[in-house]
């Protein structure tokens, strides 16, 4: 039993991180019923931003957190603006702009990549062939676009699978962001350099088996959650947000700009994800890579479901439960399967109680 306090502390820390990510999922899902798969990637981007601030620029961790939050807010808003907003409001001319955004995103990344490999691009034939290879899908879609524009106004485009389209878009966004990160920062894992971080992070608190960084995670999570819940409960915008998650059509009739509220949810969720990412990397002590967002992301979604999707307190509770499950099960049963336990817990929750611990039955049928 003497390991138990350690597992508990570890689980609570993980849980706090999951809770921070889960809030982003639950807010978005609560309003637009979309599993924002790319949320895990925002978490990853936030970590990389923090990494650059701390390791390369030598900034203080607190300032790095703030800048990463700002960076992720931008990414989150762009994400909604380019990928999800057009799906929600139907086709408009401005969509061409966001399409250009998506294509541009892809090509800029590829450009970055090519610059890295410049020496290998010496053969002109190689360059042309590469360009063609990556232009081919773009041309394909130019053709598809022309056709769709010709058929504009035809009903039945999303007759069958509007929600499925949104989910697949989210998966596509997740893939894209991951690959972009891989191109920019290479596929190899990084970690925060110990010397750049304040020393108290790895020191033990007197008398309790808690490291400074674990305390930091708890305080940050508690503080942010507190601020968020005050914001949602007492401010005008917060109330509008809750109204949207109850019924966004009625909210729109009441004069709430739903799309702006959704954008705001993305922004808030992304900011929290940035904090979660940096704290997670500080806690785990490395493994910052382009795939790092995937597991915490899916598990945080599970946490959101566990607590009752759309319910912020539920997300925190779910995060803590899954963090503890993962930590305790991997401690006592098998550490190689740590994520498998969290996945198992998720499956169980969805099968047995899909409306979550704090939700109401029938409120959130997928």
């Amino acid at each position, binding site marked *: 039993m003497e390991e138990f306090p350690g597992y508990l502390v570890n689980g609570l820390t993980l849980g706090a991180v999951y809770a921070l990510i889960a809030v982003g999922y639950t807010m978005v899902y609560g309003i637009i019923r979309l599993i924002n798969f790319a949320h895990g990637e925002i978490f990853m981007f936030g970590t990389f931003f923090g990494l650059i601030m701390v390791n390369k620029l030598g900034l203080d961790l607190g300032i790095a957190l703030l800048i990463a939050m700002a960076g992720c807010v931008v990414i989150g808003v762009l994400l909604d603006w380019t*990928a999800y907003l057009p799906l929600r409001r139907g086709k408009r001319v401005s969509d061409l702009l966001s399409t250009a955004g998506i294509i541009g995103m892809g090509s800029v990344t590829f450009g970055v990549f090519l610059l890295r*490999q410049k020496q290998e*691009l010496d053969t002109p034939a190689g360059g042309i062939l590469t360009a063609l290879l990556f232009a081919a899908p773009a041309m394909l879609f130019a053709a598809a676009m022309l056709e769709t524009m010709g058929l504009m106004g035809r009903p039945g485009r999303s007759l069958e*699978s509007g929600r499925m389209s949104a989910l697949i878009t989210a998966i596509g966004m997740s*893939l894209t962001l991951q*690959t972009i990160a891989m191109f920019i920062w290479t596929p190899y894992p990084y970690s925060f350099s110990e010397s750049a971080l304040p020393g108290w992070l790895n020191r033990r608190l007197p008398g309790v088996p808690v490291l400074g960084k674990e305390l930091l995670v708890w305080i940050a999570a508690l503080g942010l959650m507190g601020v968020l819940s005050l914001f949602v409960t007492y401010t005008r915008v917060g109330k509008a947000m809750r109204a949207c998650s109850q019924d966004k059509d009625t909210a729109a009739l009441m004069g709430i700009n739903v799309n702006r509220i959704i954008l705001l949810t993305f922004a808030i969720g992304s900011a929290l994800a940035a904090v979660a990412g940096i704290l997670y990397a500080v806690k785990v002590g490395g493994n910052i890579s382009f795939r790092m967002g995937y597991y915490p992301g899916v598990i945080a979604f599970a946490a959101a479901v566990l607590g009752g999707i759309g319910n912020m307190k539920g997300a925190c509770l779910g995060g803590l439960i899954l963090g503890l499950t993962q930590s305790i099960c991997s401690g006592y049963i098998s550490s190689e399967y740590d994520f498998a336990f969290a996945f198992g817990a998720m499956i169980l929750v969805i*099968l047995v109680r899909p409306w979550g611990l704090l939700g109401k039955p029938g409120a959130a049928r997928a």
Partner: protein
Amino acid sequence: MIPKLDSPEKAWRLPAPGRAFPALFYGVPAAFIALFPLAAGFDSNLNNIILLIEIYMILALGLNVVVGFTGLLDLGYVMFFAVGAVFTCLCLVWTVDPGTGEWLFPVRKVETATGSHPMIFPSSFFAIMLLSGAICALLGVLRGIPTLRLSGDYYAIVTLGFAEIVFLFLLNEDWLSGGAFGITLNRDCMPVLFGKRMYWDTPQFYYSVTAVLALSVFVMIRMQDSRFGRGLAAIRLDETAAAACGVNVKAYKLAAFAASGFMGGVGGAFYAVWQQSVAVRSLEVWESILVLCCVVLGGMGSVRGVLLGTAILVLIGEAPRYELIGGVKVPPEARFLVYGVLIMLLMRFRPQGLLPLKPAGKPAGADEIARARATPSALFWLGERGAGRR
């Protein structure tokens, strides 16, 4: 431009949409695939790519049964693929020392009197393949039973969870799957077909993949227009109405899961032999996203679309590997960028896919209606018997 279906005159003459020129669509590629290696040799690079495309086509057709026909988003399809591949490798490498009766793993050189067969499992490839398919079908049913009630996002995320658990299991159980390094098949433990060992560059392998693919395509096309396929379509479009029409929703879903799993297992078996190895690490969930992209790109539910989508995506993904593009070495993950951007744009502008599934069927002409009116039928007799008892 596709003619609008709303105008009656055009609807009559519509060449059964989604089914125009089937001979051309299937015939030309089929002839090419059948004849190409005879000209270029079975060990050419292009031949290798064709094989990969074919294997992914089998996988994509299998996924299409659940995603396209039944309308459930399966994000964990890779688990069938992985289990099928690992199982096939195990069948081929596990062996028994004839002297001591001990199980040996991985295979060692076993000298026997006859000398040729180190395997104890059936060395016939088709036996292994069918067995692998059957195991995966069972797995599909087992996974399906608890998830029957789910649909939409929750189904997607639960299948993802199952796939992750299977993935972590295979990754961590070194004794079973070789762990992160995987299992490599020696030259002398490859399966036997028509008395010869199969490698990726042998005609037996090439034509057995092709034959299985052709069979799958045929079955899928037939399935769409069968009672079973219509039942699945009904489930996809409206589960309640389907049940009210007498469709046994649960049984049909389970059958679809089994069929899908079977195809996944078969694809995995081919993949293992094609690669002569299986590395679990490469069978992550993103691999099932790739197969999903193939299905989505072509058009969920449309067999032609799925085949086209697979061909396009595998070509895009494989081209860099074979250095077809000069000196630039693109890491294999680069294809995910293309896939990601591609499916995002697709969902925006053409969510139904490149060759979408359309309401189809042989149009009924006036003469056929007249004939139907005149012919008595055991299935429908209302109005025939005139006034009943009243």
